[in-house]
């Protein structure tokens, strides 16, 4: 499809029958058009809603009387609304859109039963809409990451079952018996999510566990959602996009295998690090801290694999939007994991456990790692669905820098503010209010970062809207971030 500048080869497929394969891929892409665009459109709509909510939440934290006194605009309702919109509206839907497209491509089969998927997307949207409404009207369950009331969980589950059965069908009809790395992660994500969600719902609402175990289940669920659902989709996407864009196979399958299984094994045990020093048996916390330290194994193998794949091709990041976003996301995975290890250590956790550091950590995972990777995949996939190229390279550039600086500033502000807040909290000679006074300037800085992110999201939504309306460029050359004529040689070839 794209023949100039950046070579595009399917890493999982031998380059034997060039034309036939291109035709086949075009067919597959076309078959995914309706559901994937549906997922993306709803995801981006939720992203905008979530961003607006985030801005209000961020400003209200240091200016509490802003929009004050109104029940559905109170901080304690907007915050979970923002979080759930981002987690279930934006991230889940965008992730599913990308996962569906990748699955179809890698199973080398046209998408069957697109209506199943479309119906799933409709139900999912409905569920998120009702859930967020319920939170704003005061019907939150009070469990973090699972605030949606039970009736919403039912809707989400129906929606998910539709999408899940699709994924199984897809696998049944796949061609070729090689299962590519990306498919391991995606299959994992597709299976882990319903198990996690069902286990969470069962143990919290249907047959509730006693006392503190509710918290254990909540954080076990939240952490696994972050790693086994979002993290798995993002890692799978990176394993596809990086080799694809630079036109070079993944450096080592062996490393990838180690990375995948250690990731699944260790990251799923890290949930209790959010509860260090809490009223729990010590072994639970210790096991989670140990598992967190062990996640350095997948981080190292995955990071090394990506790095060695990319070696010599880094200059391509100057041109390819997909590569730039994806590599940013892949690098953030390392940062996210290292921060995760640091703040889970008992001596550090006793300082930062109840501070803004945990907010920084969630945003590193969900934004710097997951969202940036998904942005990258959208820049790759959307042109193949609408048959147009992105209209403005400059807008993509702006989107990238606003996002990158935004999330960078936000993380720094929250980490620095959080550590100072924690230091003051652990200093009993200071009154409690001192710790709040300390963190407030950093929260204002965070609001500034939020403005950058808002700008970037509106730019992206506008650009995506143009594509959706068929206003993209008609061209066989993808949109590059910088003019390609200047220096095409990526160093490696």
């Amino acid at each position: 499809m794209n023949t100039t500048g950046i070579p595009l080869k399917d890493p999982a497929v031998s380059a034997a029958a060039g034309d036939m394969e291109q035709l086949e891929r075009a067919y597959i892409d076309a078959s995914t058009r309706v559901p994937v665009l549906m997922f993306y459109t709803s995801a981006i709509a939720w992203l905008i809603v979530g961003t607006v909510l985030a801005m209000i939440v961020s400003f209200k934290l240091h200016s509490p009387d802003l929009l004050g006194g109104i029940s559905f605009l109170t901080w304690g309702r907007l915050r979970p609304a923002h979080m759930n919109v981002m987690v279930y509206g934006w991230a889940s839907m965008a992730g599913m859109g990308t996962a569906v497209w990748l699955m179809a491509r890698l199973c080398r089969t046209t998408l069957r039963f697109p209506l199943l998927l479309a119906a799933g997307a409709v139900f999912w949207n409905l569920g998120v809409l009702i859930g967020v409404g319920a939170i704003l009207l005061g019907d939150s369950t009070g469990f973090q990451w699972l605030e949606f009331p039970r009736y919403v969980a039912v809707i989400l589950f129906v929606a998910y079952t539709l999408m899940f059965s699709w994924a199984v069908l897809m696998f049944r009809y796949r061609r070729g018996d090689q299962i590519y790395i990306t498919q391991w992660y995606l299959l994992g994500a597709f299976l882990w999510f319903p198990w996690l969600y069902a286990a969470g719902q069962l143990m919290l609402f249907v047959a509730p566990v006693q006392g503190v175990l509710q918290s254990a289940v909540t954080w076990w669920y939240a952490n696994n959602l972050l790693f086994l659902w979002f993290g798995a989709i993002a890692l799978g996407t990176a394993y596809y996009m990086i080799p694809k864009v630079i036109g070079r196979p993944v450096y080592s399958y062996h490393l990838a295998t180690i990375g995948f299984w250690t990731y699944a094994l260790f990251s799923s045990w890290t949930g209790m690090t959010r509860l260090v020093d809490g009223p729990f048996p010590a072994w639970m916390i210790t096991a989670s801290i140990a598992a967190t330290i062990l996640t350095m194994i997948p981080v190292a193998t995955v990071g090394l694999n990506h790095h060695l794949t990319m070696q010599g091709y880094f200059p391509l990041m100057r041109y390819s939007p997909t590569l730039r976003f994806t590599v940013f996301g892949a690098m953030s995975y390392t940062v996210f994991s290292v921060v995760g290890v640091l703040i889970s250590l008992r001596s550090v956790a006793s300082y930062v456990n109840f501070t803004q550091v945990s907010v920084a950590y969630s945003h590193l995972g969900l934004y710097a790692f997951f969202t940036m990777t998904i942005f990258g995949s959208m820049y790759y996939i959307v042109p193949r669905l609408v048959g147009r190229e992105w209209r403005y390279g400059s807008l993509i550039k702006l989107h990238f820098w606003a996002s990158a600086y935004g999330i960078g500033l936000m993380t720094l502000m929250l980490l620095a503010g959080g550590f100072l807040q924690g230091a003051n909290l652990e200093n009993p000679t200071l009154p409690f209010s001192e710790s709040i006074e300390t963190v407030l300037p950093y929260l204002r800085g965070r609001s500034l970062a939020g403005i950058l992110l808002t700008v970037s999201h509106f730019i992206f939504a506008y650009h995506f809207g143009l594509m959706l309306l068929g206003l993209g460029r008609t061209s066989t050359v993808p949109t590059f971030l910088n003019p390609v004529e200047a220096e095409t040689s990526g160093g490696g070839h």
Partner: protein
Amino acid sequence: MKGLAPLFLGIFGTFAFSWVGLTVLPTWQIGHLNPESDEEGTDIYPRPQSGMFVRGAHVYAANGCVYCHSQQVRADYIADDIERKWGNRRSAPRDYIFDRPIFLGKMRMGQDLANIGARAPAPEESPSPAGAARPAAQGAAVSSSPPSQAASPAAATSPATTTAASPASASATAHAASPGTSPASAAPPNASSPSGQRTGVASPSPGQMANTTPGGSSPAAPSAQTPSAPWPIQTAGLPPMYSAAWHHVHLYAPRSINPDSNMPAYRFLYEKRRIAGERSAEALQLSGGDAPPEGWEVVPTYDAKCVVAYLMGLNQSHPLKEVRSVGSAPATGGASSPAPPGSSPAPAAGGSPAAPK
């Protein structure tokens, strides 16, 4: 990788491993705790809570209090929660067996609330009717532990005159562990007079504990925690700190109590209405810009009363066998008490990790 079966089994296996390890095993270990009681089976803790408390917990959940307030006290050798007077012992799994949902919390943009009810002044000082809704746990603070030094508000300022005794020994003894931080701890000499000063109920029956106004045996100890309270100024003209009336004013206009507070105002939980006849006894004692115009009053809705009842009921000051209450080594036998199942590396001298069921 080839073949779907090993992939599927591996994916299922890793999930099952983590699910069993982090949720099923703990349920087997600490998922069926019962309340504790003394030998006679009378002094039972914790106890199920009142209807208002339960509804208040839902208001608490609905308005997202948990995103700023934790409800867990960490051990004194880990953090300074206890030194901050957020409790007199670490929280244990048993403290939460009736909590649904649970609000352990992950953020302290506001104070820890695990013992906010224990800090309330004695009921008779609490003018608001909502105080009457104080649930059982408050009464349960009346413990069966040996007598201890009381620290009434008066004691805080003039220790020499202290004569009042507190039944909630645990709270008072907390001060022995943190000398120098609280004015009340300036009164250790009195503590050495272990006379039967423990007022009122000698061996409180459940019925008595449920009684919210146990006469002279009102749990006065909590007020001992007030002196080093985190809000800098307790302005005159406001209800006693942490009383029900104070909570109402604080929820309605947080910045009237602490100008720097960044807590949202929950005005939608209150009703501003024209005074019909006489001013309601429930009306909030507001001043300045927050006060309603002449002829109007601000009264709490039922939800507001419930959430205050909930806050007043948050109280973990009752000693637990598996957790060492700070400074009460002789009282609760810290040395001989077995390490709890729910404790992180407990320094308890006895160290034998038996799981009391």
